[in-house]
């Protein structure tokens, strides 16, 4: 069934959107939330399991202290209050992805609450209020067999791998975000993007949306324009890329408007996002099925972070990534576009370190976003994963600045670095890359080029200086690139004047 949709601009003429985002962050702890099983992504099925995460009788969970620390640091970075005392709770439901028949989560006592994050959208700031951030555990992964597309519909049975069951998750829930209007899809995307950057800066998660270590659920409702009320919401689950967050909001706005325009009611329900077609489809209705019968987890004692510990963790917080970006852009004098490219290439840290090692911002940017970005792209990695350090780049640029290398030779130094041939200086020495500044050798090469190209030489004698390019090329070829083109040009013009 295809949904009827209303054009986006028409939606805004009649309705105000309200957004709510629930983001699950898988922590990068070594071991699971309540047991010592490893957490590596991509292991063979059911190789990272034990009686606790399989929910076997008699197994007792114990909280991973590092996960609590990460939860508090996330909360502090989101300007949350940290609970003085809170408990875990059992969220009871029957589904094979949780072998215990409940998920250990937190209910009415989240560890972090009442925070906010200022989100920048096209130079405008939206304050997104954070309702809560709580600790819980991830579920297992189901593989549906027999259906046409691996989906649950039409499958005749399912296969479950519990490696992921019990990996620590932090669920971050916003309050309803209102007043974003036409920018609602952008605000949703920018919030998730900034939250991801924050998580990366905190170093508490791999933060890979493509691997599911950050997953977003998008709540959306519409209310009549100017009414100030909140309409019935739908929750679109597992939207796993930034672009999809934006698209899912846009789609649901258009779909809701069509339903409301027809005088019908929005069903409060879960929707599934389809990445390939860019649409949502109905999941289960929120009804009896959502009666989770929460109760305090008797097998885990309460968590009561001391104020001293909280303050100690506050001291470990990194500079806010958004503020840092603005500061660095001002310091470096990058344009908005240059800055966006830098961030997009994952080159912010390496460029900062290269500049710290003495290179100018524009030269650092030139290498990391030019030659090195190209090579990273070929290898399908980000620049910070290349076998070239900021110190290497700084040294190469220093050699260029002092006239020992030109850009072409510098690229050969990078070849050497990629081949693991040592430091830039070692590579220059071993490969004999330094520019020949000996005028004797250069002079001979220029004489040879003139002798081999008498027509060109005549033109230059007649004042057609532009023709010198052909001779410079010949000289550079003879010198195998190891000459300063500027000096070669000077010599040619001296000899032919």
């Amino acid at each position, binding site marked *: 069934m295809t949904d009827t949709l209303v054009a986006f601009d028409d939606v805004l003429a009649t309705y105000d959107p309200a957004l709510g985002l629930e983001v699950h962050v898988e922590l990068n702890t*070594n071991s699971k939330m309540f047991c*010592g099983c490893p957490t590596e992504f991509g292991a063979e099925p059911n190789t990272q399991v034990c009686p606790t995460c399989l929910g076997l009788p008699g197994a007792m969970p114990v909280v991973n*202290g590092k996960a609590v620390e990460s939860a508090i640091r996330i909360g502090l970075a989101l300007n949350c209050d940290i609970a003085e005392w809170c408990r875990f709770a059992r969220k009871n439901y029957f589904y094979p992805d949780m072998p215990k028949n409940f998920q250990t989560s937190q209910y009415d006592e989240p560890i972090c609450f009442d925070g906010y994050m200022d989100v920048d959208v096209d130079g405008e700031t939206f304050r997104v209020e954070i309702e809560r951030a709580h600790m819980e555990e991830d579920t297992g992964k189901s593989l549906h067999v027999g259906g046409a597309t691996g989906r*649950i519909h039409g499958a005749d049975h399912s296969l479950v791998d519990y490696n992921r069951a019990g990996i620590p998750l932090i669920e971050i829930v916003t309050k309803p975000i209102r007043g974003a209007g036409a920018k609602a899809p952008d605000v949703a995307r920018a919030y998730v993007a900034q939250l991801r950057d924050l998580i990366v800066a905190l170093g508490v998660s791999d933060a890979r949306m493509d691997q599911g270590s950050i997953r977003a659920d998008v709540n959306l409702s519409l209310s009549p324009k100017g009414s100030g009320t909140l309409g019935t919401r739908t929750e679109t689950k597992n939207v796993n890329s930034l672009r999809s967050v934006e698209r899912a909001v846009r789609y649901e706005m258009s779909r809701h408007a069509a339903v409301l325009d027809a005088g019908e009611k929005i069903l409060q329900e879960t929707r599934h996002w389809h990445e390939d077609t860019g649409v949502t489809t109905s999941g289960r209705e929120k009804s009896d099925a959502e009666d989770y019968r929460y109760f305090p987890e008797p097998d885990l004692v309460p968590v009561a972070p001391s104020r001293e510990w909280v303050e100690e963790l506050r001291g470990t917080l990194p500079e806010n990534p958004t503020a840092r970006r603005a500061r660095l852009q001002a310091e470096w004098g990058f344009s908005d576009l240059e800055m966006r490219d830098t961030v997009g290439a994952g080159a912010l840290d390496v460029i900062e370190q290269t500049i710290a090692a003495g290179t100018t911002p524009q030269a650092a940017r030139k290498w990391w976003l030019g030659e090195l970005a190209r090579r990273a792209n070929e290898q399908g990695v980000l620049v910070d994963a290349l076998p070239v350090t900021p110190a290497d780049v700084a040294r190469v640029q220093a050699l260029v600045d002092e006239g020992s290398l030109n850009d072409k030779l510098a690229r050969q130094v990078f070849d050497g670095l990629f081949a693991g041939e040592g430091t830039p200086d070692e590579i220059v020495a071993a490969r004999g890359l330094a520019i020949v500044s000996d005028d004797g050798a250069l002079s001979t090469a220029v004489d040879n080029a003139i002798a081999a190209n008498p027509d060109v030489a005549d033109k230059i004698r007649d004042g057609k200086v532009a023709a010198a390019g052909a001779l410079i090329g010949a000289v550079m070829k003879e010198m195998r690139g190891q000459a300063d083109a500027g000096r070669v040009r000077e010599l040619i013009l001296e000899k032919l004047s």
Partner: protein
Amino acid sequence: MPEITRAEVAHLANLARIDLSDDELDHLAPQLSVILESVASISGVAGDDVPPTSHALPLTNVFREDVVTPGLTPEQALSGAPAVEEQRFSVPRILGEEQ
């Protein structure tokens, strides 16, 4: 303590995926009420000076170091499974939606 109704027992049975007949519901509802009443009698004993608690031990912050410890082999993990396929637990067709 309010008594547990037959409808409430039917709802709980549904949540717990237990198929109860009408006879069983008739039989169980009054029994569960008696159990709840018996437990509720504890409230009569507790004075105002006794705060409600969910835990028997007066402990907080029992944490584990973030260290990997040996678990089960896949063979051990799957040894009690009624059906296994591709080193995974095979479960019957799932009705309803994914969580």
